[in-house]
């Protein structure tokens, strides 16, 4: 078996002997035939997958987690989604929403089986209002396709995760996805103004408004990023931004990592606000260069990919300021992409980096910790030190301008000892991020992957309120169970991985 997920996917599992995944994740009871029949009645037989060989593909997303649904269905309307949810509720079967399955935290996996609703066939633009810079889309719409459709009006959809050519806007909404350009334009939540939802009892409702501001609580703000644990999203109203007049992309090349990370801290401190500021360390850029040939110098210790956007006058001033900071921190060279082609090549190097790393080690574990930008230099030094102590290669390719680290721990999952150590090293890195004022996840979501680490940040009282919000909308955990919240430690359900994390991270 070889599973190689598209886009941002970090996971490459080779060989059948991958057995490290906890039994709990794959535990599932087959769905009762009445459920299957009911689903077929609602959607037609061809829109319901239930044979094990058909379900296999839906066991994975872009994370190292796994969980097989009992059935996978492909509705085309909100009404159908609502009917499926009602049917599932009648039979007490959980429902999991899924876009393209590119997520990196197990958010779209059926942790305890159930009916998986794949939104692939709800992928239309319902309305494109170029005049007022709004689009109304179905959740299965691919992120990049919206930007393509809006281009005619000189507009685009700002959130741009690395997987933008395959990931869906519904998935972006669930996870509150980011991307390189969120530095200047914000993450998904900053671009969503209204949602249509299906609640766990099948009720269809709308929150927010086209305008964005409305009377009452900011419910759209609550649902974006709730990882499918409160409601299913069936329609999304988003803001579209006007394309900037001018774009300049710089590649700053450094002979040591400290120089690059200090440059990022200094650019932030001087408040230069680029549209994107990405860092690749030497080891990572070499892996990428081998594969993509983006033009990253093989002998460098780190590069920064910095994009400046806006009025020509603003960009010109910022390019000069960024160059000055880079040179002060001993950049060997600062290159400015000469044309669109060169620009795209540099970005291809960045956006396909995770795919490139898949060629080097059997598996890797991508972290998503986020820290204050002023602490990037010390954090990178600590990560290097942790890697050396555990004897792992840890690559760094990340959204430096946001302080959103993506350390990548490379390991061989067939070696149980290695796996355990990789997890312990990862937990130590995350604990450090929290210690210096950071958070567990900047854009990938908590999902199944980081739920056991949540107590690092949140108290029992915090969980108490979050749980009450969860239960206010999803009282029986019928939607996307087993996500975000740490599992009850007393029930023996805790995963081996989580155990390792908990041991490494005294709570």
């Amino acid at each position, binding site marked *: 078996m070889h599973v190689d997920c598209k886009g941002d996917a970090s996971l490459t599992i080779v060989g059948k002997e991958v057995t490290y995944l906890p039994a709990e994740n794959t535990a599932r009871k087959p769905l009762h035939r009445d459920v299957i029949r009911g689903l077929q009645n609602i959607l037609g037989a061809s829109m319901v997958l239930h044979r094990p060989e058909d379900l296999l593909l839906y066991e994975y997303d872009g994370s190292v987690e796994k969980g097989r649904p009992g059935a996978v269905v492909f509705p085309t309307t909100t009404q159908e989604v609502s009917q499926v949810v009602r049917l599932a509720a009648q039979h007490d079967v959980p429902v999991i929403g899924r876009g393209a399955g590119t997520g990196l935290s197990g958010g779209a996996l059926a942790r305890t089986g159930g009916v998986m609703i794949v939104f692939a066939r709800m992928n239309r633009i319902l309305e494109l209002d170029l005049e007022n810079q709004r689009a109304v889309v179905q959740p299965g719409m691919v992120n990049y396709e919206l930007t393509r459709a809006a281009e005619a009006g000189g507009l685009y959809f700002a959130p741009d995760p690395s997987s933008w050519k395959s990931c869906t806007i519904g998935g972006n909404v669930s996870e509150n996805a980011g991307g390189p350009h969120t530095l200047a334009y914000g993450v998904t939540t900053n671009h969503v103004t209204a949602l249509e939802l299906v609640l766990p009892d099948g009720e269809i409702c709308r929150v927010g408004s086209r305008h964005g501001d409305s009377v009452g*609580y900011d419910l759209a703000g609550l649902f974006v990023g709730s990882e499918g644990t409160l409601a299913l999203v069936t329609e999304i109203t988003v803001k579209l931004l006007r394309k900037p007049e*001018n774009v300049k992309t710089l590649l700053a090349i450094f002979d040591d990592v400290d120089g690059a990370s200090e440059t990022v801290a200094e650019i932030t401190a001087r408040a230069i606000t680029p549209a994107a500021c990405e860092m690749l360390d030497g080891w990572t850029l070499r892996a990428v260069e081998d594969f993509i040939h983006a033009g990253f110098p093989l002998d460098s210790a780190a590069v920064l990919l910095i994009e400046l956007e806006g009025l020509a006058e603003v960009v010109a*001033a910022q390019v000069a300021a960024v160059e000055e900071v880079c040179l002060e921190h001993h950049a060997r060279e600062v290159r400015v992409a000469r044309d669109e082609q060169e620009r795209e090549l540099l970005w291809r190097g960045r956006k396909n980096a995770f795919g490139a790393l898949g060629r080097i080690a059997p598996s890797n574990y991508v972290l998503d910790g986020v820290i204050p930008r002023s602490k990037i230099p010390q954090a990178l030094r600590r990560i290097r030190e942790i890697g050396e102590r555990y004897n792992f290669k840890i690559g760094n390719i990340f*959204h430096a301008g946001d302080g959103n680290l993506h350390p990548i721990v490379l390991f061989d999952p067939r070696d149980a000892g290695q796996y355990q150590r990789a997890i312990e090293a990862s937990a130590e890195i995350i604990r450090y991020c929290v210690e210096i*004022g950071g958070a567990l996840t900047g854009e990938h979501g908590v999902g199944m992957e980081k739920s056991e680490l949540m107590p690092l940040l*949140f108290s029992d009282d915090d969980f*108490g309120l979050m749980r009450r919000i969860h239960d206010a909308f999803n009282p029986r955990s019928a939607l996307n169970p087993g996500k975000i919240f740490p599992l009850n430690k007393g029930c023996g359900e805790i995963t081996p991985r989580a155990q390792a994390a908990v041991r490494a991270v005294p709570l």
Partner: protein
Amino acid sequence: MSTVATNVAARLETVIDAERVNGGSDSCTKFAVDGVAPSVVARPASSAEVVEIVRFAKSEKLALIPCGICTKLGIGIPPTRYDIAIDMTGLNQIAYYDPADLTLSVDAGMNLAQLAEALAQQKQFLPLAVPFFDECTVGGTIASNIGSALQPGYGSARDFLLGAEFVNGAGTFTKSGGRVVKNVTGYDLHKLLIGSLGTLGAITRLNFRTFPLPEGYGHLVGAFSSVDSVERFQAMVSKSPLAPSTFNILGPEAAQTVAEFKDDRDSPLPSWFTRGEWHVCVGFEGTETILRRYSSELAQYAQQCGASNYHLLQESDDKALGGALRELLNLLSWSGPAATIFKINAFPGFTPDVINLHALAQQFSISCRIFASSSGPLYFALQPGDLNDKTIGSLAHIASGVFEYAAEHDGSASILFCPTSLKRVVNVWGPARNDSALMRRVKNAFDPENCFAPGRFVAGI
């Protein structure tokens, strides 16, 4: 002091320092909401004391309203119960500020102007250009979600609020979000606090992203004889590469109010405004080169759209105008005993049919002011001369017209400020909403026993 009040005050003194409990009637009157005064004011000095107060209220089944400096307590419906005002101004420090990371953590009771001063020392600021700026607190600004003039350039609070700490109705101290600029760890509960008007809990601390102070400022003030040319100008700017930081549209009467605004120097603004015309004030920022580009391009657009005249303002003039525009709501809320201000979130924010609102007010011979930000909201301020039954009747008619206008424009409207007597006949939050049930679920999760500001909010919350 009534016996009930004495009792509440006396019992409250057993859970927090007696010095922080004030049952005096003067003090309680200051914290009255729509004429409903609390029986005691508590001024906690720590979040732990806020927890004690909430637990006390919960066990005694008393109602609480967290307050700042009381500039916006008039927003909303009179509370059904109100026993304890929590005066949050005792929590007034910057808890953490990392200028190099452009992040800030500040106590809810801190004065906004004082905070601005502290940030300015690091050449930074928080883009909350809100009315009552000099007096109000950070917490009150967020809890009321009062509009910021800088929204076109910087977005609204939900775009730069990174996290919050608060005491919810269950009497527990809770937090959401964090202090980093990008974070998807857990539910974004802090977003719910924005505009929640104290109905979900007492906000104790807020974390923000800060922004660099621009090198320089400029403003274009353009006068237009028709509302259609205003719309044309707005469309032209929005389709241009320019990204102004503020964009205020003023109807003729609103422009006149701004023109007469007296700042600290006690002198009215220079004659940038032309009587009887619509005006557009576009603010922009940056280096000299950038300011020049904005000035020349905006002037060109104004001419193309048939502006009857325009003025380009720099530095100190810009500051004076910016202050007047920011405080317009404040000014109008005090403009008479029956002053009534609607906030309309229509889509698109500004269209030529805003003159229908004008006509609506004229029908009842009530003078009105219309002003808007390009990206919304639209404000409609009425100034009836006297407060009497006839006025209230007229205002009620106008209110239903405004709510209809908002619905026709795919939006919603509410009354921001109005006389309490109007609130007896009109729901200031507008017609019933289809998401009311969901909002009540949120309220119940945060405040299961309905301790916080009962009855003051949307949907009977």
